[in-house]
């Protein structure tokens, strides 16, 4: 499916619908990469946190209590 952009021009009361140009496609890929990177970061952090809790032998709630 082609990536598209819809431009709603409120000044001229016009709507333009077209395929994304090269610059917009590059931005789309960059956005996608950033989202994936962020999701990976959060997943890694969750894994590390779970491993640490297991190592300490405490639950998530007990860890929160400890830090409060």
């Amino acid at each position, binding site marked *: 499916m082609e990536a*598209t952009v*819809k431009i*709603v021009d409120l000044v*001229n009361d016009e709507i333009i619908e077209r395929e994304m140009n090269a610059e917009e496609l590059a931005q789309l890929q*960059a*956005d996608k990469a950033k*989202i994936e990177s962020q999701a990976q970061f959060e997943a890694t952090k969750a894994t590390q946190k779970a491993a640490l809790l297991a190592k300490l032998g405490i639950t998530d709630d007990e860890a929160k209590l400890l830090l409060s």
Partner: protein
Amino acid sequence: MPTPTDLVTDLPADFEVFGQAVDTQMKTNADAATQKATLTTKGDIYAATGTSTPARLAVGANDTVLTADSAAATGLKWAAVPSGSMTLLSTTTLNATTINITGISQSYKKLLGYIKNPRPTTGANYNLRYNNISTATYSSTRFGSTDVNTVAAPADTSIGLLPDVRNVASTGFIVFEINDYANTGTLKLVTVYGYGENNSVVGDYSIRGAMGFSTATSAISELNIFVSGGGSQTSGTLELYGVK
């Protein structure tokens, strides 16, 4: 005035009677008509001061609205738009990867957006940008069932509206508000709250409340709604309001 069956015996006299009758009727019609010259200025309108009594109501000042006022001669007046009133600026079907709303009027205090029934082609995050700025000038903190609470430095390239929206016919709803969007002296703050069906865990819902900002201080004349994580938007509606 001769009738169709009258015998014409004095043609000049009959014509005179006929002509006088036509003149009389034309004057009656002219007297009953409203003169075009009543309206003298661009934007003037006709308004009645009483039964069958049209009069000129002069055009009001810019950005005023017509308001009923029984004390006014015509029963109408031009008045400032009441504070807090909402004007629908656009209604847009969300059927592209990116939606750009451009040429936003600078005449309001706040922009209010309703995204109704968003549906991506595949599970996707919905995001917001100002003025198509895609550099790392955004930051936000979120509270919701699928996010941890974070306070990040301005390193994001957009404001997240709702994550992982499922690609089904949706009853989802996202609201965003941008106050004082036309000023050029402060960063631009947005509050977001919304919910939608979660794509990763079918049957669950994502609920997000977020506050975000962009460090860019330029007035907002364009908003960009886009999905990331692949796919496009297939349906849903964006209603954008200007609030006085």
